[in-house]
């Protein structure tokens, strides 16, 4: 927790626990929201597309942060839960013509239920065994999707989805989708920030730190562990629903173990146990991804034997794998820790001590 500047003190617990506590924080927040509003008119379409993808991933990773970072339940199946959300949302939109503002929450619920089912073993097993269970979820998921009847989830062909419409607006361009996605991301992040300050969030942290002690204090482990998976997977499901409307195609190969590993990598890089950490991780990894995409042509000349089609994948793997390993060895507390050191030293300047 970053320290506050000198001279700021609160007189009630409510003030002290607020998300926004000082005037300058209000100013920054309003400036930031205004920036989000005008961003599509400043940046090029390519940047907007990048932000859209990052914002969707951000929702899933914030969810993972709740399950893994706060409740301490290792989850390597986030991508499957996201896929479940996308398929439920897509299926409802295609088969029942549900509007997007019903289909996306339904997708969230679909992902959440799948997550809760695979979270139940968490009551009996933990740590690395749980990681294996969620990997099983991740591997079994596409198998089942592909072998269910084609009119449910599209089987091998996947689902093609019509653009979302609201009133007279059709969300079919990057800019219109930007507003839909960013609004959802902001709402979901705000919900997460509030959730973790509530009774539920404190129960999660207690379970993470020591689940036997938590149970002694009267926390129902079965309920809260399943709830941690439920909420985390609900985030993934909502992200999946947005993904379905953004790409407008849903296929089982979009939700593999590979992406789950990415999401876990993002919370490690950003810092476990902090919502801002999740967001920082997404921004950092997605930026690396773009940099590699841009370096692609140069790298192809440098490493001709690899083949340009595979090079991006290979480069991404090396960078992401390397980043995860380096962060775990040298900065296990992630970017968030660095950020909070920076912020604190800025706030208490000119005093040197944190």
């Amino acid at each position, binding site marked *: 927790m970053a320290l506050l500047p000198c001279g700021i003190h609160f007189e009630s617990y409510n003030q002290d626990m607020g998300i926004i506590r000082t005037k300058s924080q209000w100013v920054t927040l309003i400036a930031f929201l205004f920036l989000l509003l005008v961003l599509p008119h400043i940046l090029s379409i390519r940047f907007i597309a990048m932000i859209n993808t990052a914002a969707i991933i951000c929702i899933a990773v914030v969810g993972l942060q709740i399950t893994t970072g706060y409740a301490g339940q290792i989850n390597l199946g986030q991508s499957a839960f996201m896929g479940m959300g996308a398929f439920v949302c897509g299926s409802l939109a295609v088969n029942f013509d549900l509007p997007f503002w019903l289909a996306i929450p339904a997708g969230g619920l679909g992902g959440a239920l799948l997550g809760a089912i695979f979270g139940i073993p968490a009551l009996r097993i933990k740590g690395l065994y749980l990681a294996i269970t969620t990997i099983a979820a991740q591997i079994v998921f596409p198998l089942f999707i592909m072998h269910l009847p084609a009119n449910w989830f599209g089987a091998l062909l996947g689902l093609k989805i019509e653009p979302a419409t609201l009133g007279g607006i059709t969300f079919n361009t990057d800019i219109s989708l930007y507003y839909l996605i960013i609004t959802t991301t902001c709402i979901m992040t705000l919900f997460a920030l509030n959730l973790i300050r509530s009774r539920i969030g404190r129960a999660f942290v207690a379970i993470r730190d020591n689940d036997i002690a938590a149970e002694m204090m009267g926390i129902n482990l079965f309920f809260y562990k399943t709830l941690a998976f439920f909420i985390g997977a609900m985030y993934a499901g909502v992200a999946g629903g947005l993904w379905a409307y953004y790409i407008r195609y849903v296929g089982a190969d979009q939700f593999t173990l590979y992406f789950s590993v990415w999401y876990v990598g993002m919370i490690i890089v950003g810092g476990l146990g902090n919502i801002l950490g999740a967001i920082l991780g997404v921004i950092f990894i997605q930026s690396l991804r773009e940099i590699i995409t841009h370096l692609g042509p140069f790298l192809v000349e440098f490493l001709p034997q690899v083949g340009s089609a595979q090079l991006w994948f290979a480069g991404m793997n090396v960078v992401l794998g390397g*980043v995860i390993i380096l962060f775990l060895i040298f900065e296990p507390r992630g970017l968030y820790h660095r950020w909070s050191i920076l912020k604190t030293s800025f706030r208490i300047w000119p005093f040197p001590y944190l």
Partner: protein
Amino acid sequence: MSFYLIDFLQYTFDGALKGMLYALIALAFIVIYRAGRIINFAQGEIVIFGGYFVFTFFSLINLPFWIALAFSFGLAVLLGLLIERGIFRPLIGQPIWAIVMVTIGLMILLQGLMIIIWGGGEQLFPLVFAREPVRIGPLLFTRSIFWGGISSFLIIFILSWVFEKTRWGLKLTIVAEDHQMAQSLGISVKRSIAIAWMIGCAISTFAAIVLLNGKEIHFSHSIIGIQALPVVLLAGMESIWGAPLAGLIVGLGASWADAYLDPYTGGVMSEAFPYLLMLIVLLIRPQGLFGWKIIERV
């Protein structure tokens, strides 16, 4: 013998031998886990990395058979040492999730390195075992799987002898049971973990030869590491003799599911069977069939 019986026998033997291959990979996994409590999600990548070493010395450089084999295994052992020194030694004493995550990082790092070093296309793996199948009565076996199955039994026998009867192996077993106890008896835990990684990588390379002999080598085959996870869990994470039995159960189950259930389920059962079995095992008996300790229940 009737036609159906021969069919059934063929499926059974195929399943059993495939199970032996899983057991071999599970064995590498178990050796590494025993020493450092490291659950190695990068196991499949290490197998294929070893396979690429074999590919390099046999097909690219064209060394004579035994020299190529020696170089491949030498390099695999070196890789094990490198991984232990570079990644796992700095993490000794870190929480369990950090170890799990770092193996996941290693998994994708190795995948990327494989593509960059050897290219992303499929390449023909050398024939270490001859191509023509072994014929016993009316049954046919792929030669590599046949010899692989038999030699994995041999390896398991040697390993369990080493771990239980030799002074050197007993040191590794003590480390497996309790790090602090081993340390206070003057056994170097660090060195034991390094040795375990080297043995694990050598076994992995052998598994790669059995798996890929005469087929195409491609980085995506490293999924075998995840496929072997159910065998590891069923065996119990510490049990060397558990691996072949669990391999047998999973191999037979998958093979029979392939033969008798898949026509009705559209091919899903044989692929999903090991994982479903694993989920059941985790829920009912989390320490596996032959695991040592009772897993901390909550």
